[in-house]
């Protein structure tokens, strides 16, 4: 059985399509449309589309610090979305034969719907929301201060080393 998922609307690389806990790559169809075809034996398939930031989990601070050091003070790090937008849409779709699901991006409204789901099959929506993660914004600011502190520490250490040597 085939499940075709089509995403219509402005494509954001940070959006990740997950089908049965596996990340699925979207291919370009035309203009603002992307699609993916998934072969499955299951009659019910879990589909999710996320946009997440890296300030998640219990140990977010230590992870951020690790990224900072590994990427040589952030020089080789990736560019992050500073707005901390989080989007989460997950649903279960009944797959009977060849099934097509069209996901249309909604305009951004804080705490509003993320995707409009169109399909002839039956779906069970679990979540569908997009919002600015204020907690992540706070964490981002906290991390910025920590990075400046580390920088300052390194500078002081370097000056001390130069003076002593």
């Amino acid at each position, binding site marked *: 059985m085939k499940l075709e998922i089509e995403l219509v609307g402005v494509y954001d690389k940070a959006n*990740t399509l*997950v089908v049965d*806990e*596996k*990340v699925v*790559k979207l291919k370009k169809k035309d203009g603002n449309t992307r699609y993916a075809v998934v072969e499955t034996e299951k009659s019910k398939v879990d589909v*999710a589309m*996320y946009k*997440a930031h*890296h*300030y*998640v*989990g*219990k140990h*977010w601070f230590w*992870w951020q610090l690790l*990224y900072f050091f*590994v*990427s*040589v*003070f952030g*020089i*080789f*790090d*990736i560019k992050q979305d500073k707005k901390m937008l*989080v989007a*989460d849409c*997950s649903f279960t779709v009944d797959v009977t034969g060849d099934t097509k699901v069209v996901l249309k991006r909604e305009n951004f409204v804080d705490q509003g719907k993320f995707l409009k789901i169109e399909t002839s099959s039956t779906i069970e929506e*679990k*979540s569908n929301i997009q919002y600015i*993660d204020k*907690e*992540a914004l706070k964490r981002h600011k906290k991390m910025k201060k920590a990075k400046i502190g580390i*920088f300052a520490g*390194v*500078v002081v250490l*370097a*000056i001390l080393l*130069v*003076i002593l040597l």
Partner: protein
Amino acid sequence: MEENKEVVTLNHNISPKFVSTIRADRFSRIFFNMSVTLMIIALFAALSTFILPFAQMFLVLIIFLIIFLMIVVTFGTIFTLPNNPIIPLWEFLQKAIDFEKVQSLLVYIVNAIPYICIAGLVCSVVSLLITVLNKSKREVGKIVALSIFIGILIIAIILYFVLGGSL
């Protein structure tokens, strides 16, 4: 920890498996960026040993990069140091532009080639391992690119030692 309560509500629907995927992806991209940069530096260094204009361009770029990084990382406080390293670097830069003196300066860079290659190889291997082990996200393009990098760097290291180089 104070965050415990908030973590429950933050991205509550996103599975831990997905979180580990995005973490692995970030590490893989960091190491990929590092290996690309080291590859370019090693390539320019290698080319500069027999193509003089490359040598000049390479030296000027590297010295500019080092000066820029020094100023940024130290927030400009480097100028206040008694043994300001910017001055000898600037003199070095002027020598680099001087066509005849390039050859003598190249010795320093050429000596660093094996170290740059080894560092690039380590970064490429780490990035490749993370990308391959991250089974929920298949990135064929990246795997192919990293395999090419590893091949080139291994050949470069072997050639260096075969031609009589040592660490």
